[in-house]
């Protein structure tokens, strides 16, 4: 529906809401990117920045909520407009959670920077890159109201789950190898889990875009690749460590 509202201020309000979501999405994207970089570069300055910026995302969510509630009360939106406003509430909530996960990654980056580096940390930027790609695709899909792009992003979450599961196994192996690895590896595990959860929220957004464009929710069951809940690594089965220097600084 490209036609303008007879009441122009309503169209303007809807546009403003979309702009707020787009801006918030951009910030969330940057937060995730910076947090992952902070882990990779062991940069406490970057990490601090991410933790401080999280308040901005919270503020965006409050603004979007207030705006959406005001429009629901005053405009009594219908059909596409109604879906637009309800979707913005849901997307803002997902982006806010993504921001929380990014902040948590940053916090752990600070801790990791104090500890000797461990090899599995190398997998984090790889996961981070995939998460960022998915987020970018989802946010583009929101801006363009592009259903195909949203569904494509939604499917890619499976790859992320696979990466997470393999990282999970790898990290467990390192922990068994040397108890001194346990602290950094546990943090890595949480970071990976956070990235995996960010991916889940991105797929939520993809599903919301589906509802926004088509009018009903995405019915298909998303392929679930995260099998880490069932992962079991026995010390006896553990593959020989990739290198004896792995745990050494």
């Amino acid at each position: 529906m490209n036609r303008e509202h007879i009441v122009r201020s309503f169209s303007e309000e809807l546009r403003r809401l979309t702009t707020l979501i787009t801006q918030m999405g951009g910030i969330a994207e940057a937060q995730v990117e910076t947090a992952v970089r902070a882990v990779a570069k062991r940069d406490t300055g970057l990490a601090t920045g991410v933790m401080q910026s999280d308040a901005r995302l919270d503020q965006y969510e409050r603004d979007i909520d207030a705006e959406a509630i005001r429009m629901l009360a005053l405009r009594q939106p219908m059909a596409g407009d109604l879906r637009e406003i309800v979707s913005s509430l849901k997307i803002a909530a997902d982006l806010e959670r993504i921001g929380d996960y990014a902040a948590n990654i940053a916090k752990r980056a600070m801790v990791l920077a104090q500890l000797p580096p461990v090899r599995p940390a190398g997998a984090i930027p790889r996961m981070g890159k995939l998460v960022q790609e998915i987020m970018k695709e989802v946010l583009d899909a929101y801006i363009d109201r592009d259903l195909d792009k949203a569904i494509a992003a939604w499917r890619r979450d499976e790859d992320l789950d696979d990466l997470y599961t393999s990282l999970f196994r790898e990290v467990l192996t390192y922990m068994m190898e040397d108890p001194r690895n346990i602290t950094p590896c546990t943090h890595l595990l949480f970071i990976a889990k956070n990235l995996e959860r960010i991916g889940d929220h991105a797929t939520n957004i993809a599903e919301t875009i589906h509802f926004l464009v088509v009018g009903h929710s995405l019915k298909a069951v998303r392929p679930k690749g995260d099998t880490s809940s069932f992962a079991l690594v026995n010390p006896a089965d553990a593959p020989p460590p990739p290198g004896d220097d792995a745990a050494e600084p």
Partner: protein
Amino acid sequence: MRIEVSQRAMAGRQDGAVLRGVPNKITARAVNVHYGAKRALTDINLDIEENRVTALIGPSGCGKSTFLRCLNRMNDTIDICRVQGLIELDGEDIYAKTIDTVQLRARVGMVFQKPNPFPKSIYDNIAYGPRIHGLAQRGPEMDEIVRSSLERAGLWNEVKDRLREPGTGLSGGQQQRLCIARAIAVSPEVILMDEPCSALDPIATAHIEELIDELRENYTIVIVTHNMQQAARVSQKTAFFHLGEMVECDDTEEIFTTPRDERTQGYITGRYG
């Protein structure tokens, strides 16, 4: 999913009774209406399901009131009006020669935009219909009809002590409920409402809407309204009319969240040109 819904809706249009378990009270097929040379309605096909509220929405002049008035042959009173097509009430052609329009209008009652009580007492406003239809004369039998009609219209407690006062002395909202009570008094099966709340304040409107919801248990209701929120609140089915055509009819929820036709979407979101 989208296709599934529309197929179901289409199937429902053809045979709602079998597929949905709700029998059609009224079916309209290929209804065309002309006022003189001007065509007001074009090939309307619509099923009105029993014990449901069907809302007819659309911009002014779209033909929704004209269609409503076809359902109890109110258009017969307009000389230049010509109705073609088939309208069945319980499977019976209401435009057949054998149909007595007075009886038909007792079965299909009507409530208008402006409350129009007779310039009589509250009691006589209600008693008038049953009396001319020979349902009851005077005495306890009529008292009972008056009481139960006013009760069902949610007006009894407000007027029970002033039944002999003129109906025109009531407030607008009370007058409209009096008109609804008057329509109910002759035990209709269908109640047609043409903008019943447009002259009422929000509280009186809420009373009427609550009443409509209660009446649905015993009656089939068709309501014309310009107030989209009202259509959304009171109806289970909504039909959108535009330029004399019935564009889309579906479950109210569908119409107001996911209309299929661009024109419906444009109208209900306030983008209609």
